[in-house]
């Protein structure tokens, strides 16, 4: 595990929650069954396999547009989604494939969406950045940096509009990247959530780089979890490479959101293994930097830990990885074999309710019947 997350050299203000220590002791105290740890590894392995294959399919031009991967962030993906109840709502960034799968969208539907097919998660309308499934309460990947934060806050407003606080309450989890803490939408949303006591957990996945810009180069307060203190929102920094620590911290934050109707800000210290997107060679990163990223890679680290702890054998781990690979291979076959969306349906989704005079004109057609 890497230095940043472990570094105890944090100056935490009075307003900042120090649930980190609570989280750690809870994490150590609670005995994890082998089955649960194994399940966590299976999930991390699946996200890893999916993203590696997505990268390959992008290189083979099966996937268009932008393609941002969760490589290196598998522990945050698995830990966060494990903390959510089915009734909770999740809003994510454009780095959303792993979250979509962990929230219950079939890997085949996610891959088919990347391929732009009619069987994709959103029927080929959104692509990599816009995975969505209302029934799974996966309320979207969002391509505009920070764009998801006000709507996520509004979803929490709708929960508080309709229901009382309590352990059975719904809650919202809203992901954002480290660089997003500099945009106005972040600050306006946290202010509203603090002011209106909304049941929402904002999660900063701090992978230390906003495209090529470091956190220190972008944020006057690089301890990002402290940025909630202006809005009296408790903040907490967590090791994003430890899926159990992530899950426990998220559960504790969600409990506060449900039962006290107080927003929480979590900062998960993570690291991108690769470039910002598939096409980014990340030349702005030093060799030391990428070596460190590889050393801290959470997937092999977690696998080795489970083997060392006797939870998995080497053979188990290989079987799990092979199974993940098989699922992803099937997803690719499904995506490949699926039909494109029909051009005859081009105008079907512009409006939710039919409306007079809505345009159904193709490029070479006139706006009205020619006289």
């Amino acid at each position, binding site marked *: 595990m890497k230095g940043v997350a472990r570094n105890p050299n944090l100056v935490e203000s009075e307003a900042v929650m120090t649930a980190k220590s609570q989280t750690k002791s809870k994490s150590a105290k609670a005995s994890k069954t082998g089955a649960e740890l194994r399940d966590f590894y299976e999930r991390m392995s699946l996200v890893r396999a999916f993203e590696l294959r997505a990268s390959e399919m992008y290189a083979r031009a099966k996937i268009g547009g932008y393609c941002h991967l969760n490589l290196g962030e598998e522990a945050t993906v698995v830990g966060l989604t494990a903390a959510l109840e089915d009734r909770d709502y999740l809003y994510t960034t454009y780095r959303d494939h792993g979250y979509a799968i962990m929230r219950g969208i079939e890997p085949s539907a996610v891959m088919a969406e990347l391929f732009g097919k009619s069987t994709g998660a959103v029927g080929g309308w959104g692509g990599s950045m816009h995975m969505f499934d209302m029934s799974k309460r996966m309320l979207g990947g969002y391509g505009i940096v920070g764009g998801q934060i006000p709507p996520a806050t509004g979803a929490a407003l709708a929960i508080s509009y309709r229901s009382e606080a309590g352990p059975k309450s719904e809650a919202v989890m809203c992901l954002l990247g480290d660089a997003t803490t500099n945009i106005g939408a972040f600050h306006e949303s946290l202010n509203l959530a603090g002011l209106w006591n909304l049941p929402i957990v904002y999660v900063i996945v701090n992978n230390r780089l906003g495209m090529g810009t470091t956190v220190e180069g972008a944020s006057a307060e690089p301890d990002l979890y402290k940025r909630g203190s202006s809005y009296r929102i408790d903040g907490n920094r967590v090791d994003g490479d430890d899926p159990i620590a992530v899950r426990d911290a998220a559960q504790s934050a969600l409990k506060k959101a449900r039962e006290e109707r107080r927003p929480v800000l979590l900062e998960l210290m993570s690291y991108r293994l690769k470039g910002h997107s598939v096409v980014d060679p990340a030349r702005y990163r030093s060799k030391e930097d990428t070596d460190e990223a590889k050393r801290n890679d959470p997937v092999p680290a977690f696998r080795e830990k489970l083997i060392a702890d006797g939870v998995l054998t080497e053979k188990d781990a290989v079987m799990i990885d092979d199974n993940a690979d098989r699922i992803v291979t099937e997803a690719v076959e499904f995506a490949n074999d699926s039909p494109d969306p029909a051009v005859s349906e081009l105008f079907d989704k512009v409006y*939710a309710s039919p409306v007079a*005079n809505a*345009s159904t004109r193709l490029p070479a057609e006139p706006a009205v019947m020619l006289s």
Partner: protein
Amino acid sequence: MTDSTPEPRVITYRQALNETLRAELERDEDVFLIGEEIGIFQGSYKITAGLIEDFGPKRVIDTPISEEGFVGAAIGAAMLGLRPVVEIMTLNFSLIAIDQIVNHAAKMHAMFGGQVKVPMVIRFPGGGGQQLAASHSQNLEVWYAHIPGLKVLAPSTPAEAKSMLTAAIRDDDPVIFLENLALYNMKGEVPAGEQVAEIGKAAVVKAGTDLTIVSYSRGMVTALEVADEFEQQGVSVEVVDLRSLRPLDRETICASVRKTSRAVVFEDDMLSYGIGAEISATISEGAFDYLDAPVRRVAAAEVPLPYSKPLETAAMPHAADLSRVVRETLDATQFTK
């Protein structure tokens, strides 16, 4: 009329909006109002007067000055099935929320594969002429009218304010609801009982045979005034109220011009790339063979609107401007009554 069939009343545009908001709040628990100063302050233009007293702060939510935040929050609430009616103090401030309106509200239904609806209304007044200077005097409705996924309504009378706001609140898509500072005190007859307009339809509000004036929102007041002036001179002017800027009812416009052979568009906005440009292009496609003269546009001068009253007046289009262009269009075709 019997007691059970209440007669229409003459009320202001403001009152029509206020009564409609009240009626929809009463009808549907999922409807709530959200915006700056709409509760305790009673609304910057008093459209929401008295509503917080009767519906409480849960249904009439005062917000901080945070347009991107509260417009976006309304989008999220709408995604979960509530029906927010957002008030933005003026059109000018909607630009602060434009990412949420254009990149999010307008896109979500399509981009998420038709799985989510965003049933919300964003109301704001536009328009200049109040000596508020350039940043507070704009008509940028065409920016929103450009965007598929949005519906853009612009009522020009108290009766339309009622029927169109009712339709907007009950619609399952994001609706931009354009009001105008100069219309709030305008009085008109409003039918009693529930009135729900059909979105996407223009209306021929005055029939005529010699020339068509196309306008919307406040421009309609001027359009009708000038039409009456020409009527008295024996010229039969037809007036088309666009009512819906998106979708645009192109067929109603073209049908009118096919009948009259002459068209003038009157708009408060600047000319370049404006509503008038769209209408002119529509007519050239749909009624070219019927035209006796070029389509003319009466629109604002292309300057940031000044504070000085004489300068502001010079920059904005008025009845005399429309009257002159109607006359020029008639003369260009040797029109005689």
